């Protein structure tokens, strides 16, 4: 975010001076306090930085999991489970709103591309303007990509099935002796190791479906995931699934969009997110798509 502030200041200079857009942003570190820019102005100024001219190219995971994406699959689309261009689900609605505020009419001026988790941060030219797929901001990750501000503050939770030894747990201590699992690439594993400190080594899965299979088999007793995903798993994926509880909020964990390092678009998206936080749009989106998915008992 420190980087984005610098870029923001530079943008103010370039946009007020009506400088040509080919001037590489960040090449000249002179800063002056300019007038605040709108997200749309920012996007117009930096149109040259777009992956594909005139459209916003957004990457996300495939399958597109609820409740982050909703609306179902569309025939002919390569996306499984849900079609991102419907703009439904929490991330779907956030992208639609951000795109509109940047001046890209949703869904016509927005293209979605499926991005594998590793591809999101592989070095080199990225085939998207930004990617959002429940990626948590981490300072170590900041070297490989640039992150936007938070678009969702994350709480981790544990999901299980009725009949397991931890289904009725109310404290973290009760989870300690259970065999647990978490998907790779998330901060859920950190929660298991740092907060629960289990006596048995956790399993780490490539995707949630595999964790669910092991839960059904009884190989593990619980899966730690972010809270909205926990509700989805308990309701849809796990037979007799239960959200055991959520962990005490760790204030610094949030989902952020990831950009190619040095992308001037970070500042534009940050402006859009700030606008959305200011006028309550982001809260409204959360109420619409996650209202029934954040209310779990906090584990003592």
């Amino acid at each position, binding site marked *: 975010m420190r980087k984005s502030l610098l870029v923001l200041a530079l943008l103010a200079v370039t946009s007020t001076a009506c400088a040509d857009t080919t001037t590489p942003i960040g090449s000249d570190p002179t800063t002056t306090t300019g007038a605040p820019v709108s997200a749309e102005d920012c996007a117009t100024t930096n149109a040259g930085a777009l992956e594909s001219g005139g459209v916003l190219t957004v990457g996300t995971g495939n399958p597109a999991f609820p409740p982050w994406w909703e609306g179902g699959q569309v025939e002919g689309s390569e996306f499984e489970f849900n079609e991102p261009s419907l703009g439904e689900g929490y991330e779907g609605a956030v992208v639609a709103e951000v795109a509109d505020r940047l001046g890209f009419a949703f869904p016509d001026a927005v293209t979605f591309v499926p991005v594998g*988790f*590793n591809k999101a*941060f*592989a*070095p*080199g030219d990225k085939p998207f303007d930004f990617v959002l797929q429940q990626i948590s901001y*981490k300072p*170590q*990750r900041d*070297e*490989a*990509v640039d992150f936007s501000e938070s678009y969702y503050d994350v709480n981790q939770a544990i999901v299980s099935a009725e009949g397991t030894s931890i289904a009725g747990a109310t404290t973290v201590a009760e989870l300690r002796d259970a065999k647990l*699992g978490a998907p*790779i*690439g998330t901060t859920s*594993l950190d929660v298991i190791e740092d907060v629960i400190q289990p006596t048995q*080594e*956790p*399993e*780490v*899965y*490539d995707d949630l479906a*595999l*964790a669910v*299979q*092991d839960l*059904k*088999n*009884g*190989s*593990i007793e619980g899966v730690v995931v972010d809270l909205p995903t926990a509700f989805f798993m308990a309701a849809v994926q796990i037979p007799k699934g239960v959200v055991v509880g959520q962990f005490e909020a760790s204030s610094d964990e949030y989902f952020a969009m990831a950009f190619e390092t040095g992308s001037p678009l970070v500042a534009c998206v940050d402006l859009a997110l700030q606008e959305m936080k200011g006028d309550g749009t982001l809260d409204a989106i959360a109420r619409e798509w996650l209202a029934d998915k954040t209310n779990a008992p906090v584990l003592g």
Partner: protein
Amino acid sequence: MSAPREISFPKRTPGLDPPAQGNRGSRILAPLRAEGARGVAIAIVSTVVVFAVVTIAVVSSSGWPLIRQSFFDGAVFAEAFPKIVDKFWRNVFIFTVAEVLVLIVALLIAVIRSLPGPVFFPLRLLAAAYTDLFRAVPTILVIALLGFGAPALAIRGVPSSDVFWAIVALTFVYSAYVAEVYRAGIASIHPSQVASARALGLSRQQGLRSVVLPQAIRRVIPPLLNDFIGLQKDSALVVFLGYQEALRTAQIIQSENFDFTPYVALALVYVVITIPQARFVDWLIARDQRKRQAEATL
């Protein structure tokens, strides 16, 4: 019993091949010795030039700073390497146990496939079906199907441990390959040796055990080790079951840092353990050849 003479393979004509002691080291260096000092000098210059050009081309490419940051990050390497080595012992356990089982199971299958006579047809058919099936299905699918499928049967007493099912799956797949290696070794033993053994009064089993198999196995040691190296690498496929071995450890650190350096660290571990094995096979072959040459001149 005197050591059997080579019948199926005529001795190589001396002079056409590099001398046997040339095989003591690497086959890459052997031709150089024949060339003498001038040859060595040319080889050194050309090697330096080739490596220098490649290095300059890579390092001066516009993407190099990014690559260096993402794949060769010293701090990430220092964090990852000890953790990866620590978890690599789990891979060592998996592939060592699997290899022992593979060598036994594969030999049984190979012997069954080599049984003569119409009575054994059903057994030969089963053995053939086994090798066909497990060479056809990708290893990762066998691991996934057994690792997630077998525990789902919920049969009492059947473990749900990832390590257990990984070892079982790797044993199935690799014993299919290794059985073929053994079979080729058995087939390379000239029938006259079996006939001689029988003429000496050995039973069919005795002939197989003390005449055919010892020669056959010695002949196929290099391909056996080749498959063993393959097995060592495939032990990484157990990650699919969620087990935290070396590759998973590398992936966790990678996703933590958005940095691929842990993969380079793990690759290094594999290189360090495999290359000595390859050299060891070279040494075995050279020793075996010297022995047989000594026998032949008796």
